């Protein structure tokens, strides 16, 4: 009983903090756009963790689908129709479709081999956006477009000029995705994924079509990560090939591990720490990369369970 109450309390605190963030962020030295970035990265890390933490499959190529979502959204606004919801829809469709196709090629692979192939495949999309500069803007990125205010008929949401409003716009999609993830993970399908994570061979002997489940989990995970990607492009009013680079995939993984990949909220905690540190350190020094590298090493050596993993241990003992 106590455990359930703890869980409820934790959920309530998380949502309360997220809902009120624009009001207290500047008290602790933050700003609204930083909050928006945390939400986007948290969504991406939680999406990755759907696969990593709850299916036990390590993908190191999620930046590709994040970036495809971003480019899909940006190019829709720039070339097709100036509509924000449509941009998100197209971005998500592009990212998810690409993942579904690549997924069929890789579901049979396991462990580090899976990681290696996902990261290598991510590079295809990186080079396409990098080289096809007449359409994608190449290395300079896709500029000269902005997110578009949304007309609801009775009122107009000016998400372009009002950063607080755009924060809540992102939070809306974040909440929607999180709710969907929760439902999926609590369903028999989600329980089956956990079974595969814990003992793949036994799951197979029980007659579970393991390959199909891993393919589904990979595609669902990339569906969520492409939502994050589309929002990321809208947040910056800009997108460049670095949104697909494998370094970003590594960042998603480290966020999940840093927060605790066996906890539902772990990646959110990891994303908060990571993005805030990144913002702070890169304003202090040129050598941000060494710092982040050191962070990777320290986390792996001393912090492998992540923040929430440690908290949970403390509570249990």
């Amino acid at each position: 009983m106590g455990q359930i109450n703890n869980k409820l309390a934790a959920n309530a605190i998380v949502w309360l903090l997220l809902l009120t963030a624009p009001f207290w962020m500047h008290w602790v030295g933050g700003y609204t756009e930083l909050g928006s970035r945390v939400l986007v990265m948290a969504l991406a890390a939680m999406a990755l963790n759907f696969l990593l933490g709850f299916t036990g499959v390590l993908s190191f190529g999620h930046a590709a689908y994040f970036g495809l979502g971003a480019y899909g959204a940006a190019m829709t606004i720039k070339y097709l129709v100036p509509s924000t919801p449509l941009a998100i829809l197209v971005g998500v469709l592009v990212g998810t479709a690409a993942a579904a196709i690549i997924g069929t090629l890789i579901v049979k692979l396991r462990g580090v081999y899976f990681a290696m192939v996902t990261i290598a495949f991510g590079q295809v999309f990186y080079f396409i956006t990098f080289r096809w500069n007449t359409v994608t803007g190449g290395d300079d990125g896709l500029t000269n477009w902005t997110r578009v205010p949304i007309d609801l008929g009775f009122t107009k949401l000016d998400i372009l000029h009002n950063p607080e409003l755009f924060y809540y716009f992102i939070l809306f999609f974040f909440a929607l995705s999180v709710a969907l993830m929760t439902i999926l993970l609590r369903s028999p399908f989600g329980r089956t994924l956990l079974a595969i994570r814990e003992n793949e061979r036994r799951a197979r002997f029980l007659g579970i079509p393991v390959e199909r489940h891993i393919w589904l989990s990979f595609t669902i995970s990339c569906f969520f990560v492409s939502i994050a990607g589309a929002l990321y492009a809208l947040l910056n009013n800009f997108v460049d090939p670095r949104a697909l680079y494998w370094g970003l995939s590594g960042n998603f993984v480290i966020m999940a591990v840093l927060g605790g990949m066996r906890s539902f909220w772990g990646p959110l905690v990891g994303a908060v720490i990571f993005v805030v540190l990144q913002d702070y350190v890169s304003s202090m020094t040129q050598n941000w990369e060494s710092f982040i590298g050191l962070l990777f090493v320290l986390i792996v050596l001393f912090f492998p369970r992540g923040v929430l993993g440690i908290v949970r241990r403390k509570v249990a003992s």
Partner: protein
Amino acid sequence: MTQLILFNVFNGLIIGAFYALMALGLSLILNLSGVINFAHGGFLAIGGYLAYVLIPFVGFWGALLIAPFLTAFIGLVVERVLIRRLYGRDQLYSLLLTFGLAYIFEDGTRFIWGAQSVPYQVPDWLMQPLSVEYFFLTGYRVFMVILVGVAVAGLFLILNRTRLGMRIRAGTLDLETVSVLGVNVRILRTLNFGLGIYLAGLAGVLAAGMLGLSPTIGNSLIMPSFVAIIVGGLGSLPGTLLGGLLIGVASGLTTMFFPSASEAVIYIMMGIVLLVRPRGLLGEEGRF
């Protein structure tokens, strides 16, 4: 036309030789220790920069001899201090650790030697074209192909003819049994890691003379090396060699007909291989 095709094939072969050298080292480490060494490209860059520092003192040939050993030594230290702690834990962690090291190496070399590529002196007589008709056949390029050939032959000699090599091969198949038979597996893994890093260092010394030496040199070679391993077949060193040369030539030829796809083509090859033959060209069934 023939000349142009030959030129691109030869160019691809040289690039492929670098991929193969990198990928062989990666494969050695992956097969025995189950670690994907993301920092391999960083070690390659260190090899190149060490040679750059050494050349004024010991000349190109001296640097070629010493720099790879120094790189391997750094590799041994990294293995003993950091990577060794992660054996037997989830492979995710060694992946993240070497990923972090890759960041540190790239940023570190940039911090010390600057982001611009540094001038790298190869002996003049090596840079002369060997023939007027085939202008691209400089001594250096031919020399590189020969040297890579020697290195690969040496590696296979070590693996097949020495006690260390036999233990490495046996450990790849069943490390536990090798350990029970009285081989010190910790030392075996360390030496194997050093051997892999030696190859990266050697590739760095050679590649610097051809591609120019800048902090990003290693990270631009590491992804194709992954592809070489996957195409050739995980667990098979001859496969890795074949994969490296194959994708090198493929990307060389694509440069000629459709230059903007010269990078993407190797990933498309990888996709086809995974579709038709998921274990890779020379990979064993059911190992991964």
